[in-house]
């Protein structure tokens, strides 16, 4: 098992390296960042001097080599726009994104699974038809549209929830949190619901489908026959098996989650990492873009490895050699 994890980690490092190399190559086509770093009245010479100063005139492999050397020492370069270390800039925004994503995942998971179970057990009641219709809408409405519709209803029309920003936040050590103020919590509602909606619908349908399949399995029928109380049958046996693919898929959807959080942060002006990525792309802030991609890759790969390990622990039939 340990060798498996080690191998996955090494593969992961390769992926991160490949991603960063890819970025560097692409940046050659991205337009000249130097111009945004000199004043409006800089002459051609001054522009060239800045270019040399930053080492942007050196061949690609030299730049990349220097970047890697620095990265290993924890230096991911300075943002072209704000001239502060790129890594720090991104990590500063990590709490905002983390709080948003965690709340959304929590909401989606709990609500989705619970409703999925409820609907699976009584498929033909009217209430359940409504929920299923709702879940269909949930996977058919793109995240950005959900966000905008929620803003239109709750912020513009009804005026009861704020449409942008994080509200008041408190700084605890290095973590800036919005969870400890009423204002912070209010600002969290719409973005979290927006982000959660799609996942919720997917989990709901997945749980329902899984439950319906599992209920026909032999060991469940045996459990019924044995006269076990329904609660035990459902939770102890059926749900446990359904949760395996559900959890796996949630873990594997990390990439999608990160992507959708970018959209959500943009719509609600949420000061998180996704928002930073978007503005960095518009501004051509290459150090921040590369650092973000590497960080995102790290998170995704770690999530995948954790899911694999969990899966192996739950399902003894899987063997990793």
């Amino acid at each position: 098992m340990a060798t498996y994890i080690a191998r996955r980690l090494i593969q992961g490092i390769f992926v991160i390296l490949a991603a960063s190399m890819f970025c560097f190559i692409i940046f050659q086509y991205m337009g000249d960042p130097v111009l945004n770093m000199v004043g409006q009245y800089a002459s051609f010479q001054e522009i060239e001097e800045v270019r040399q100063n930053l080492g942007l005139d050196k061949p690609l492999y030299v730049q990349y080599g220097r970047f890697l050397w620095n990265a290993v020492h924890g230096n991911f370069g300075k943002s072209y726009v704000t001239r502060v270390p790129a890594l720090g800039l991104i990590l500063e925004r990590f709490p905002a994104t983390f709080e948003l994503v965690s709340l959304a995942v929590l909401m989606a998971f709990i609500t989705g699974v619970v409703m999925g179970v409820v609907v699976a057990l009584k498929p033909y009641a009217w209430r359940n038809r409504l929920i299923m219709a709702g879940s269909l809408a949930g996977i058919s409405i793109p995240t950005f549209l959900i966000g905008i519709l929620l803003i239109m209803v709750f912020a513009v029309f009804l005026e009861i929830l704020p449409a942008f920003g994080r509200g008041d936040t408190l700084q605890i050590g290095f973590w800036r949190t919005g969870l400890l103020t009423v204002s912070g919590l209010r600002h969290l509602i719409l973005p979290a619901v927006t982000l959660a909606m799609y996942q919720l619908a997917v989990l709901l349908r997945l749980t329902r489908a899984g439950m319906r399949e599992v209920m026909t399995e032999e060991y469940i029928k045996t459990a019924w026959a044995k006269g076990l109380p329904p609660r035990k049958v459902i939770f102890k046996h059926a749900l446990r098996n359904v949760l395996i693919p559900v959890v796996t898929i949630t873990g594997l959807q990390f990439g999608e989650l990160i992507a959708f959080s970018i959209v959500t942060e943009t719509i609600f002006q949420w000061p998180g990492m996704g928002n930073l990525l978007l503005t960095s792309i518009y501004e051509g802030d290459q150090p921040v873009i590369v650092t973000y991609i590497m960080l995102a890759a790290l998170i995704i790969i770690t999530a995948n490895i954790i899911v694999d390990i969990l899966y192996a622990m739950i399902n003894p039939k899987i063997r990793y050699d």
Partner: protein
Amino acid sequence: MIKTRIRSKMFYSYLHDPSAIAGSVILTVFVLSALMAPWITPQNPYNLEEVSLEYFLTPPIWMEGGQMPYMLGTDDQGRCIFSTIIYGCRTSLVVGFSVVLIAGTFGIIIGLLAGYYGGKLDTITMRLADTFYSFSTTLLAFLFLGIFGKGSVSIVIMAICIAGWVKYGRTMRGSVLEVKQEAYIMAAKATGASDIRLLLKHLMPNAIPPIFVIVAVDLAVVIMLEATLSFLGVGVPLTEPSLGMMVAIGKNYIYAGMWWMIVFPGAALIFLVVGINLFADWLREELNPKIERKG
């Protein structure tokens, strides 16, 4: 022979499932409208000569200030909302079908080869697939377009295909692995059938059914993805708005009370995707043998 019976059973179930019929009707309406766009719309909103600033920001005709032929109102450049929706749906459908076709074909081929030959080819392609998949189609497409993007439909299609092939590849491979063991395949092999013949005539047709569900679901997903990318500004060009971009344009006006620029394109997008999903749901139920069904 077995296949004909299954087909007629499916057809029967199709005719009796309201959501399946609803789904396919909606989809057909959209496809037909997109095809007949030049004839059913009063204006070609992508043609700069036909659009005039004179009629900008008019509301739908049932509100004060609305005027024919702009039934659903106009946007801030004077484009007729109805026309732009129809042309926008065209873009959505073109992107959707193209990606499914290109990524699908590519993925199916990879899946066939990986599943059949196994070994190094299998490991490498699946590792690659894993990596691409974990980054998610959305993120990869967004990064690709954000950094390269020159705003054209073909580049958007390319961007989505980068990771779009993975689900086809994996599903096909899994399906091939199962079918590979079947008796008739072994028999064909034993009688000395060539690899290509085996792949094309025997493996593929039998391994392909799960792909149908993937196609239907993927179509919906790709259409939503194109809308999201256009909304973020990295998709279609500004002068040829698709549904997503229409929402992006309209969102600046919601506070001014000009809701028609978002609500109509948004509704169109939702209907289109719901239609596809209804059909996909029915298809999935049909092809899944494990569910207990009523009647």
